[in-house]
């Protein structure tokens, strides 16, 4: 199964969850997603998602200058983001439960 297609639908909530743990800049978020097991996640997809969540008002953003290189843009979650995360977490659980029941039932049948 093409997991990248699945990933597209859940990338928002995954990114929100990672940023909710701790503020992070673009590649830091990518790294943590991959460390969590989402190896297929694309760098640019994550950056675009961060940008979209920020423009939707779910994230805050600040720039940290770097002494030895280009500056980094950090993202952090805010109240709206937490609410969004909670709602999507609930949706995911229901959806995942439904799918699990469906697939397990089908396999059992």
């Amino acid at each position: 199964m093409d997991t990248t297609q699945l990933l597209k639908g859940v990338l928002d909530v995954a990114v929100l969850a990672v940023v909710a743990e701790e503020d992070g800049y673009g590649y830091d978020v990518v790294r943590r997603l991959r460390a969590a097991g989402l190896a297929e996640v694309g760098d640019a997809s994550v950056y675009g998602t961060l940008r979209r969540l920020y423009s939707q008002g779910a994230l805050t953003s600040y720039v940290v200058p770097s002494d030895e290189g280009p500056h980094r843009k950090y993202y952090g979650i805010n109240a709206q983001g937490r609410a969004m995360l909670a709602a999507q977490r609930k949706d995911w659980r229901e959806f995942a439960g439904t799918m699990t029941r469906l697939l397990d039932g089908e396999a059992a049948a």
Partner: protein
Amino acid sequence: MNGTRAQDETREAVARYAAEVRRHLGDLPPDQVDDLTDGLEADLADALADGPHPAAADGGGGPVDVGVRFGAPAAYAHELRAAAGLPDGSAAAARKPWPERVQRLRAAAGRAGAAVRRQPWAEPVVRAATELRPLWWVARAWIGYQAVMWLLIERSALLWQVRPERDGVPSRGVHWVMLLALVVVSVQWGRGRWGAAQLPRLSRAATVVALVLVVPVAWFTYESRFYGPEVSDVRYVEVPAADSRPQDGVWVDGMQVSNLFVYDADGDPLTDVQVYDDRGRPVRTTTDNGWSAWSLPGVEEPWSFVSVPDEDGRSRWNVYPLRGAPYEDFDWSNPTGTSDTAELLDEAPRTPPMPFAKAPAVESATQDAGPGEVASPAPSTASTTAP
């Protein structure tokens, strides 16, 4: 040493890749592009520092190819924009299909552009041009100003009050205001404000037109400052047509005269009067030794004149009134070949008809001058000695 050099190379490659990605987002307003790619260099560098992707076998040794690690910049930009929920530039272009010929042209232009971008110098040039963007904004405004000025020149008959100069630099307050307003609009467009987001194509087209025109227009305005005077600057100066060279002879009221008639204070005509100017030069009505024929007032035949010999045998032409005879009475064949004047055939030269037998007397002159001083003896003696 080696490490820092590799770092520099990596930084260069990352900057190049980021510039490419931004270029592929070029149809978006600049502030959106900045928003989307802010911190991109740091992310790319960190990703590279994490080591090569599992796909890349040999780590670290060769030159950094960011493209191998992240894929084509176009695809990266596409992914970035799709994840951010922004409209796809290529999809937007595909909505309105161009005519096939235009498409082929665009494809060829794209290939040529890609070939140029592969050159090693392309990236720094593009980067420098991007950093000089504010300069292009001002140039764009200046081109717009020139366009407005040109229109005003075309309509100058209606708009004398604001008729512009053509040397490219505004000189009146209203022109400066116009130029400054255009600069403000252009800069705001460049920053993605004031409708540039809605009309990115218009903004970009204006930039392209400005870039194409800025050099020729600057050249033209510079040239026309010297060679193209305004209509109002042309002044016609009236110069007399006959002013080329002062002509010989005696002129009265724009008309050359053949002879002078001298009257004394009492108004009686004098003969054989020598006339000199203030520098002692003889005043001559004729300078060609009598070869010319003169038409005299009230005389049907043209006349020619002769000189008067002085004591030393020289011909004198400033003794008035000149004597002469009708043109036909001269022998113009010059039989002896020695003389430079014509021979009068059979009669003595005569005094041509006088304008009047007696002129009005001059009152003050007769009172002041004593009888002895009046040149009254001259006529009698002259007339007797002359022939």
